[in-house]
């Protein structure tokens, strides 16, 4: 299978209080320069006429680009890629920044899946999150995307927000499902270092969601989505069968993908590539005719095993044992059978003939499950 392609657009209208992804506010001239540099990086990184398995444009805010800039980006992609097979092509959309012209430009580019960053429908929480849109904006943006012919829709919601109650969260989720989305991503609010929100937390201005409530929301999500025909297929992701995000599945199974753009990461046969989180440095390197990648690290066998479990156990189907053997170079049971045995006894992990996976209980404490397994790997290494 051909590698997938990820394109990072590190620009935003304004930086949200919870966000620590690589992004910033920039002017139109910077964006033009950025698109030209994307062109150069694609030329260096991508075999001419590559037919990527999937494409994903993320950010930042890709829809921060003007309709004209999106068209330009579409032309750039068209020069380097063969999209004739109509691969899954997702673009992250901030509802407040979408216009009918932008939606049309995206559709022309080949985008067939819109990942709508709604986060919440509740005006109070939107304000708390510094999200620059109002209630009602999301519905309008979804209509625009559909109008332009983007067929698949996914809605991003956040939960475990400071002060959020279980009924408030359930209302948000029901409203998202009522829009007829076939895919929902539910992300628990995380307090990341160096964000406005974390500073507020340190000052005591916001209270984190209690663990019990977060757990209740996590469990309610499975129930409510299930009633609407969407099943949990990853810790944070729900889909109507067949509508799972294939691009993200490449990440979770540590397939191959090429990362393009400042701050983008890629993975080719177990080697991680990382671009600098500095769009000027990245542009300058490409303008000088060379790649800006700062890191290329081939994972050691132990790291490969660890990374595969770290990503793969997030999937409800778990990690395919054959894939583990091929990727890590050894049998799963040989590497971490002891820890796995303890976890099975605790009812957190289970084996199928082909896979190892978390139970429902195990998924709730996945990070600890992975630490247990990884520590076992360490002892043996």
């Amino acid at each position, binding site marked *: 299978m051909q590698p997938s392609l990820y394109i990072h657009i590190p620009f935003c209208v304004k930086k949200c209080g919870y966000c620590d992804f690589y992004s910033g506010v920039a002017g139109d001239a910077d964006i033009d320069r950025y698109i030209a540099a994307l062109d150069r990086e694609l030329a260096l990184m991508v075999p001419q006429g590559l037919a990527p398995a999937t494409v994903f444009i993320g950010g930042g805010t890709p829809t921060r680009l003007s309709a004209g800039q999106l068209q330009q980006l579409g032309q750039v992609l068209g020069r380097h890629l063969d999209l004739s097979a109509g691969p899954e092509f997702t673009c992250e959309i901030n509802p407040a920044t979408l216009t009918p012209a932008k939606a049309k430009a995206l559709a022309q580019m080949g985008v067939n899946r819109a990942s709508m960053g709604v986060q919440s429908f509740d005006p109070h929480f939107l304000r708390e999150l510094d999200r620059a849109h109002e209630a009602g904006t999301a519905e309008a943006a979804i209509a625009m995307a559909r109008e332009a012919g983007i067929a698949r829709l996914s809605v991003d919601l956040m939960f475990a927000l400071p002060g959020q109650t279980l009924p408030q969260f359930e209302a948000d989720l029901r409203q998202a499902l009522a829009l007829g989305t076939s895919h929902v991503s*539910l992300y628990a609010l995380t307090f990341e270092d160096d964000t406005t929100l974390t500073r507020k937390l340190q000052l005591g201005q916001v209270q984190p969601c209690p*663990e*019990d409530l977060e757990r209740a929301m996590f469990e309610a999500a499975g129930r409510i989505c299930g009633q609407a025909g969407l099943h949990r297929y990853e810790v944070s992701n729900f889909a109507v069968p067949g509508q799972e995000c294939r691009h993200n599945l490449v990440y979770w199974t540590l397939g191959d993908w090429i990362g393009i753009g400042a701050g983008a990461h890629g*993975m080719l046969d177990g080697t991680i590539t990382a671009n600098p989180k500095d769009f000027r440095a990245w542009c300058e390197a490409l303008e000088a005719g060379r790649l800006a990648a700062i890191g290329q690290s081939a994972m050691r066998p132990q790291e490969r095993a660890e990374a595969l479990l770290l990503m793969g156990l997030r999937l409800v189907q778990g990690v395919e044992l054959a894939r583990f053997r091929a990727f890590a170079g050894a049998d799963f049971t040989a590497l971490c059978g002891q820890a796995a045995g303890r976890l099975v006894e605790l009812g957190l992990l289970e084996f199928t003939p082909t896979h190892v996976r978390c139970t429902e209980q195990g998924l709730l404490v*996945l990070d*600890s499950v992975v630490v247990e397994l990884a*520590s076992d790997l360490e002892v043996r290494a």
Partner: protein
Amino acid sequence: MSSNPLQHIRNFCIIAHIDHGKSTLADRLLQASSAVDQRKLREQTMDSMDLERERGITIKAKAIALPMVVDDKEYLFNLIDTPGHVDFGYEVSRAMHACEGALALVDTTQGIQAQTVANMYQAIAADLHVIPLANKVDMIASRLEETQQEMEQVFGIKPAEVIGCSGKTGLGVPEILRAIVARIPAPTGDPDAPLKALIFDAVYDDYRGVVVYVRVRDGFIEPRQKIAMKATGKEFEVLEVGVARMGFVKQDRLGTGCVGYVICGIKSIQDIGVGDTITLASLKDQITPLPGYKKPQPMVYAGIYPTQASDFEALRKGLQKLSLSDSSFTYVPEQSGALGYGFRCGYLGLLHMEIVQERLERESGLELVMTAPNVHYEILKQDGTQERIECAAHLPDPTHYKEIREPLVRLNIITPTGSIGDVMKLALERRGLYQNQEHLGQGRALLTFKIPLSEIIFDFFDRLKSITHGYGTMDYEVVGFEAADLVKVRIMVAGEDVDALSFIAHRQFAESRGRKVLIKLREEIPKHLFVISLQAAIGGKIIAGEKISSMGKNVTAKCYGGDVSRKKKLLEKQKKGKARMKMIGGVEVPQDAFLAILKVDQDGE
């Protein structure tokens, strides 16, 4: 200076509570010394401070020789330093035995404090002539008369004997110098008798080895003499003698009555004992030692274990190095079921323990687990023999002994009279026996209790400070051992006995204390993937139980996209945290949990 006739020598120390102005007064005496050029004094003082900062060590003279002219006559004053804290009571008493007199300094803005009382008693016991000084009389808050009254009431010092002074302005210094000459007797001794010198302090120096401070009682000490230590029996050749003034000043000899330092190539401070007598090696069997020598006796014990078993040897080296410069600290290897191989260390007191532990962590750079401190106990076995128990885990089954005895202290507390009731309550809650109360005036009182040492080593001082709004001070001295109804409380985590957490308590308090330790453990041990049971037991009988429920949720529900390295970093962080914990019965126990017993708030017992 051996040329000084004895009648011109005055040996004395300054006793004072912390912050009552001891070092400022010492600086004033330094300035008054005829041998010191004022400009040089300032420069040299500063130089030595810079050096301290640079090398990160403390170069501190334990005795300083001050040539002094008083009423046109020349004298040699030897000012001997005494450690300020009660933990070092024995060292203080030895330093006092090197003196004939003491300046008792009381801050008139604060009045007599508990430590003043303890130090005064020691000075009186050492037969010192005391010159009472009322300090800080230049300050508005000064209450000279009340301080004089207190001194009369507590020590029987007549107000007329008290000299008002100010270390800050130099007020009263000439009177103090005259009083030192007039009231403190010159040393006595036989210059023609064989050498007898008291070791009153010793400092380890990286370059010179051990610097021994002595007071020559009889005879003299000089380079190339073969000397012997009475108690340890070790022999050395004297390399250098001298006095400390501004830095070390070499002398040809230290004569009878003199105070100074001796360097004789001693590599470890363990080879000498404070309070021991130095004699000539050739006569060491004939000479009777000076009275009062004791081997330093630790009062508080705690375990130190490496987090990683492989660090055991590195820890041993660290302890060895520390013991070169600290003779009163002991360590012996021990094995704990829960913590593996480590050391049981003995300290003079809690402050001493904190100092040593801090130094050890800083200098060795090791990750260490410290267990809660305990006192030592004596058990009287069925066969009539006695045994010393330094660790709760070592206490045998009650059927193996007739009685168990614990150390008792006399505790002096000075408190505002308004807090007497609360102080009484606190002391009685801790099994204290009220003995005496004295009103000091200025709305303050001196309370005396007899109380088990074990009851005051945890958070007693903090509690005292809190109930007296910061005004209470305390001091204690060990007075003996007494039998008590004590039991060993075992603590179990996930069904496994954690010997490092077991403790000895009075039967009456065993259950409530056990329960509180469990509650504290419940807070300290993080949730696991399974339920953890915590139990306290006396013998086979469970007296308290708690549970730590299993982890409810621990999953990052966040989209890191294709950023695998970021997720890997999070995993590394969690793995590192796990590695720092001690594994007990499959439970990861953080280091702090071993101090749970220390943090038990004993309110309401």
